[in-house]
C-alpha cells in the first residue's frame, strides 16, 4: 500500500526506493539509496530532482519491493558462466560474464520473460564474444511494488533450459587446415588463405596443428582430411573449391572422406558457399574464397559457435540470414556492427 507525502513532510522518513539523478552529459546514477533517512538538507536536492512527493510503502503479504524482486529475476535469468550481485541499484541488477567466451541468449525464454508485464531484461546479442567481467544483460522489475506471483512466474520462465543468458568458454581445438586448388598446389600462386585462417583461429584460442595442400582432386582432398583426423584434429577447415566451377571438388572430397551430414550454403554474404559437414562428429568447415578478400565472413559467425560445441545444421545456417548481409564498410568495425546479429 502506498501513502503519498510531501517532501517537506518527509524529514525523518526512510526512502522506499533509490532515487536517480541525471545531469545530462555529466552524471547518471543513484542520488539517494533506498533506506536513506531524509534530513532537512535533502529537501532542496530532492526538489531539484523533480521530487515534490514521496511514497511511504506498507507491503501487503503477497507483495514485494523492486529490490526483493530483482534478485529473483536475476537468479532465473543467469545460466552457466554468468555472475551477478544481489545489490540492486535503482531496482536494477546487472549480469556479467564469469569468463571469456561466447554469450548465448535463449531468445524464446527472453521474449516470454519480457511478456510478463511486471519485468524486463535487456541483453547483448546472442553469439557475441565477451570478456570476463563484461556486462551481458540487466534486469529489473517495472513497478516499485508488485505481487510476488508474476515475478516468480517470470523467473520460472527465465530458468527454462538452464537459464536465459549463459557464457560458454570456447574449446581449445586442435585444427587441421586443407588448402585446396591446383593453382596453389602447383605453385602458380602463393597461398594467402592459411595465414588468414591461422590468425582467426589463434584469435579465439585454438591452434592450427597441421596445414596440408591438395590439388583439385577428390581423392587427394579425401586423403588430406583423413590424415588430419588420424592425427587427432578435432576441427578441420578446407579453403577453396567451394563454388560452382567444374574444378570445385572440395565438397566431393569431404563426402568421400565419410561425411555423414553435409550442409552447403549459408544465408550470409560474404559466405554463401560455406559448408558445414561432420565426419564421426568432427566438424568440417568448407570456407569459400571470399575469406581471402573480406575481413569478416560467415566463418567468423559460425566458428565460435562450433567451438562451444553447438551443432550447426541447415536451420542454423538459414536463420542467420536476417542481419547476415555485411555492409562492407570502408573501415570494418566488426563486431561493433549489425553483421550476423539479426537472428
Amino acid at each position, binding site marked *: 500500500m502506498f501513502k503519498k507525502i510531501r517532501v517537506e513532510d518527509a524529514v525523518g522518513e526512510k526512502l522506499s526506493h533509490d532515487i536517480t539523478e541525471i545531469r545530462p552529459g555529466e552524471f547518471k546514477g543513484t542520488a539517494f539509496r533506498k533506506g536513506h533517512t531524509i534530513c532537512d538538507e535533502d529537501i532542496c536536492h530532492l526538489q531539484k530532482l523533480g521530487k515534490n512527493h514521496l511514497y511511504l510503502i506498507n507491503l501487503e503479504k503477497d507483495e514485494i519491493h523492486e529490490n526483493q524482486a530483482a534478485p529473483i529475476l536475476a537468479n532465473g535469468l543467469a545460466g552457466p558462466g554468468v555472475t551477478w550481485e544481489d545489490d540492486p541499484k535503482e531496482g536494477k541488477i546487472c549480469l556479467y560474464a564469469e569468463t571469456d567466451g561466447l554469450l548465448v541468449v535463449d531468445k*524464446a525464454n527472453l521474449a*516470454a520473460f519480457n511478456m510478463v508485464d511486471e519485468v524486463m531484461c535487456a541483453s547483448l546479442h546472442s553469439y557475441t564474444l565477451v570478456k570476463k567481467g563484461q556486462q551481458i544483460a540487466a534486469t529489473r522489475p517495472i513497478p516499485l511494488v508488485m505481487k510476488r506471483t508474476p515475478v516468480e512466474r517470470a523467473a520460472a*520462465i527465465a530458468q527454462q533450459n538452464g537459464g536465459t543468458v549463459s557464457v560458454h568458454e570456447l574449446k581449445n581445438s586442435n585444427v587441421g587446415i586443407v588448402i585446396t586448388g591446383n593453382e596453389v598446389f602447383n605453385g602458380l600462386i602463393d597461398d594467402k588463405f592459411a595465414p588468414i585462417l591461422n590468425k582467426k583461429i589463434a584469435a579465439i584460442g585454438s591452434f592450427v596443428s597441421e596445414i596440408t595442400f591438395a590439388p583439385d582432386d577428390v581423392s587427394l582432398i579425401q586423403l588430406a582430411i583423413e590424415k588430419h583426423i588420424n592425427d587427432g584434429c578435432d576441427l578441420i577447415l578446407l579453403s577453396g573449391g567451394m563454388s560452382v566451377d567444374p574444378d570445385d571438388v572440395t565438397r566431393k572430397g569431404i563426402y568421400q572422406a565419410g561425411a555423414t551430414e553435409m550442409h552447403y550454403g549459408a544465408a550470409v554474404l560474404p559466405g554463401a558457399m560455406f559448408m558445414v559437414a561432420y565426419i564421426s562428429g568432427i566438424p568440417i568447415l568448407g570456407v569459400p574464397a571470399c575469406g581471402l578478400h573480406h575481413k569478416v565472413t560467415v566463418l567468423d559467425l559460425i566458428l565460435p559457435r562450433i567451438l562451444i560445441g553447438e551443432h550447426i545444421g541447415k536451420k542454423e545456417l538459414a536463420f542467420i540470414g536476417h542481419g547476415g548481409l555485411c555492409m562492407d564498410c570502408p573501415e570494418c568495425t566488426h563486431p561493433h556492427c549489425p553483421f550476423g546479429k539479426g537472428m
Partner: protein
Amino acid sequence: MESFEYLLEESARTHGHLCPGQVVGVRMAMLGCRLIGLDNPKSSEQIKKLLVYVEMDRCTADAVAYVTGVKLGRRSLKFMDYGIMAATFINLTTDKSYRIISTEESRDLSDVYAPEVEGKSQRQLLAYKRMPDSVLFRVQKVHVNINEFDLPGPTKQKNTCSQCGQVIRDGREIVKEGQTLCKPCSGNSYFSHAMEISWPGMDWSPLNGKNGKSQAGFVKGTALS
C-alpha cells in the same frame, strides 16, 4: 496419466481434428489434474472426485473434457459461457481448486518458439508443445462455492412448473410472485415463439421395425404460451 502425445492424438481423434487449441487443452488438463493431485482422472477411483468448469466452448474445451473424462451428462463438466480460455479443476475430496488461464502472450510468442514453421496454425501447434507451462498458462488458486444441486449424483429435487406442468430438476425453477415456474415460462429463455408440432414418421421407434417409414405430415401446430 497417459503420455502427452497419446492424449493429444486421442483427443484430436475424438474432437475431429488436431489444432493448437487441442494442444492447449490437453496441457491445461494435465496441469490441472497434477495440481489437484489426480494422476488418472478417468479411473473408477478418481472419476467421481473431479469437477471441471470450462469457460469457453472451443477446441480447448473438448480436449480438457477428453483428458479428464468429465462429461456434461455426469455433471462433472460445467460450461461457464465467459469466452475466456480458462478452466477450473476441482478435487471434490480435498476442495483443492485451481483456475488455469491460457496466456494471450503465448499466441505472440509462437513466432519465437517455432520460427521455422510456416503457417500460423502449424507454428502455434508446435510452439504450444515447446513452451513451458509457465509461458502457456497462469494459474490461480480459487474457491468455488458449489451449489449442492450442481454436484454429480442422483437428482436431488424435482418441482413442477405451475404454468406448463413441466418437471424441473435440481433447483432450476424460478419462483415469481409465489408461482413456481420453469425458466421458459418465467420469460428467461434462450428460445421464443415455441409452437408444438407433429412431424413425419412420428410413430417410429428403434424397436418397432417400421424404420421411420410412416409419412404423417404436418397437421397443425399448437402454440405454447
